[in-house]
């Protein structure tokens, strides 16, 4: 499955890019699986996803929990807790 990933704030800075398209193995079913998979893609990813419990995720621009399935996602946003307002 191919998905577009978009990164923001320190997640973006640590990974070193704002977006990428990646091909996921079938074993990646939920958001949690995705974050664990990304963690294994290299030092910069390991650095960004050291503490996955603080990471927030949006599928198709809507917030989701970590147990959400990612099937059918066109765009997955990955970012730290929000600090706007």
């Amino acid at each position, binding site marked *: 499955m191919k998905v577009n990933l978009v990164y923001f704030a320190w997640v973006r800075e640590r990974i070193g890019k704002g977006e990428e398209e990646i091909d996921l193995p079938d074993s990646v079913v939920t958001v949690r699986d995705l974050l664990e998979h990304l963690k294994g893609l290299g030092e910069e990813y390991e650095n960004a996803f050291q503490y996955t419990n603080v990471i927030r995720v949006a599928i198709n621009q809507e917030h989701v929990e970590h147990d959400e399935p990612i099937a059918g996602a066109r765009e997955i*946003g990955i970012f730290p807790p929000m*600090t706007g307002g």
Partner: protein
Amino acid sequence: MTAPTIRVQSENFDLQVEIDALTAGRKDIGAVVTFTGLCRDEQGQLFALELEHYPGMAEAEMRRIADLAMTRFSLLGLTAIHRYGKILPGENIVLVIAAAPHRQAAFDGANFVMDFLKTAAPFWKKEHAADGTAGEWVPAKDADDAAREKWR
């Protein structure tokens, strides 16, 4: 029910202009509450804040929050504007305007939108120090999550 006005922009805003746009030609609005969030200087050490956002989702999330507030507090109008880019101490960051027949609904509407906007709208602040050193990302506050809980 008028649809909320939602904008994400780099430019500043003028409160009176925004209120006039919301209330023009109407005679049913008795109360307008605005909240403006400004960039504070942390003991003279801040040169600027840099506001990053998730284009598309920022507007969508602000609209979801605004729609919730319109229904929950029976508002007659709502405007939410959030700036992005470099913002200096003393400058505006965010504006929420809630209009209602009576005052408590307008106060609650604006307060509710701010509590949810802080914790759910995809914006992030980075601090640039006055001495030119590399900026730090502002950490999320537990107090902001707690503030949101009061609406459950």
